[in-house]
């Protein structure tokens, strides 16, 4: 087990992150904007945010169990990339939604009023004002939640990783991922050979997260400079 490189876990983690991004960003960002802008301070939206705040605190192993029961067995996805990425999206979604809500709430309502009074529709106001002005805050939230999910082991342990999985060809293949690889290396019997590999993999994981964050920080600063209030 200690032979062989870590290309497969690296690729696995990158693919997982890409899928989590693909699933949770549109749903999380658009969902949160829809609820804050269209439901406002309605009772349903207050209940909604209470639920989301609680979901954000759910331990990741619990999400792993949800993924195992719902996706792996009930929907019969098997131990797969699909099940793992959806389960990781469960972890990321509440965090992204909360960050989006906070960024949107920070925009003074007087700016929205100005746009509406000029005869803009609600959607035009959201598209031209709410989204661009809150983009830097939303991006920060996305980075933070993505970095957190990149390091999650428990959810994917139960839903999609396998010891010797290759680079996946389809959504239904099982995969490897860096956090899982690190965990595995610390559990093998050949400790003297495996522990340095675990540390090396951990360094790679941290490096990946730093690169991701740097990219997002650059993007965020561009928005910040463009729309300052």
């Amino acid at each position, binding site marked *: 087990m200690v032979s062989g490189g870590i290309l497969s876990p690296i690729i696995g983690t990158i693919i997982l992150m890409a899928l989590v991004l693909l699933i949770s960003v549109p749903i999380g960002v658009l969902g949160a904007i829809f609820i804050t802008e269209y439901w406002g301070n309605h009772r349903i939206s207050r209940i909604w945010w209470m639920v989301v705040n609680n979901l954000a605190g759910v331990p990741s192993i619990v999400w792993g169990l949800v993924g195992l029961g719902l996706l792996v067995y009930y929907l019969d996805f098997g131990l797969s990339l699909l099940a793992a990425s959806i389960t990781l999206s469960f972890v990321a979604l509440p965090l992204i939604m909360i960050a989006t809500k906070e960024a949107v709430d920070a925009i003074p309502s007087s*700016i929205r009023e100005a746009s509406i009074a000029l005869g803009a529709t609600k959607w035009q106001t959201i598209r*031209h004002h709410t989204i661009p002005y809150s983009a830097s805050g939303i991006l920060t939230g996305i980075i933070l939640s993505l970095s957190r999910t990149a390091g999650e082991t428990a959810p994917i342990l139960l839903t999609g990783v396998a010891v010797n999985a290759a680079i996946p060809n389809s959504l239904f293949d099982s995969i490897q991922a860096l956090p899982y690889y690190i965990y595995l290396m610390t559990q093998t019997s050949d400790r003297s050979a495996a522990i340095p590999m675990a540390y090396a993999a951990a360094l790679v994981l941290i490096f990946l997260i730093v690169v991701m964050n740097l990219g997002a920080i650059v993007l965020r600063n561009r928005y910040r400079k463009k729309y300052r209030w």
Partner: protein
Amino acid sequence: MAKIQVEKLNVHFEKNHALKDVSISIEEGEITAIIGPSGCGKSTFIRCINRMNDLILGCKVDGNVIVDGNNIYDKDVDVVDVRKKIGMVFQKPNPFPKSIFENIAYAPRIHGVTDGDGNVHKASKKELQEIVEWSLRRSALWDEVKDRLDKSAYNLSGGQQQRLCIARALAIRPGIILFDEPCSALDPIATAKIEDLLIDLKNEYTVLIVTHNMQQAARVADKTAYFYMGDLIEFGETKQIFENPKEKLTEQYITGRMG
């Protein structure tokens, strides 16, 4: 016919009856000042004229507001069309956190430009530049900002920001402009500039201005309406309201014994 004809307007916020049976008729090309103590329904009243109260949860409006012969509270009226024809300037300057140019170009860009035959087409870059220059000249801001149109509107002073908001409202080519206490956050010099501008805009536009400053109402307005606790107490020529009020409540307010 009157430019704005308000008939039996009633506004409720949940259980609070904010405006009671207000009927008023506003002539084209005049400045009408709305005065009264805080919480008397002044702002609520002018926000009914471009249906901004629709945004407030639990707000219910009954009665007719007839603008240019059309009741804007009819069921088949498109709210967006109503607001396109009515400009509004708020209490606190609220420019968009974009460049000066973009602030003014925003409305023409989303609405398009109407040509001589009444057809709407997408605004070209040149047309946008013309609209921006025209609006800024009209709001007496052009000379101060012409060299920095691409700079953020947030770098302007409060008074300049408020004139930018006026320019932004003018860019939709409205017939009516509503001012909701436009000078309450400004210093006396900036206030004087806005007042000059108001007088300058008269005749071309029908202006409604809510103000706490009675001297301001006396200086700029043709007509003045006095609101108290949601009732329209008195409406008439500004001179008559200030010098010879018919109602006791108006007199008390004008002379500073109340409010």
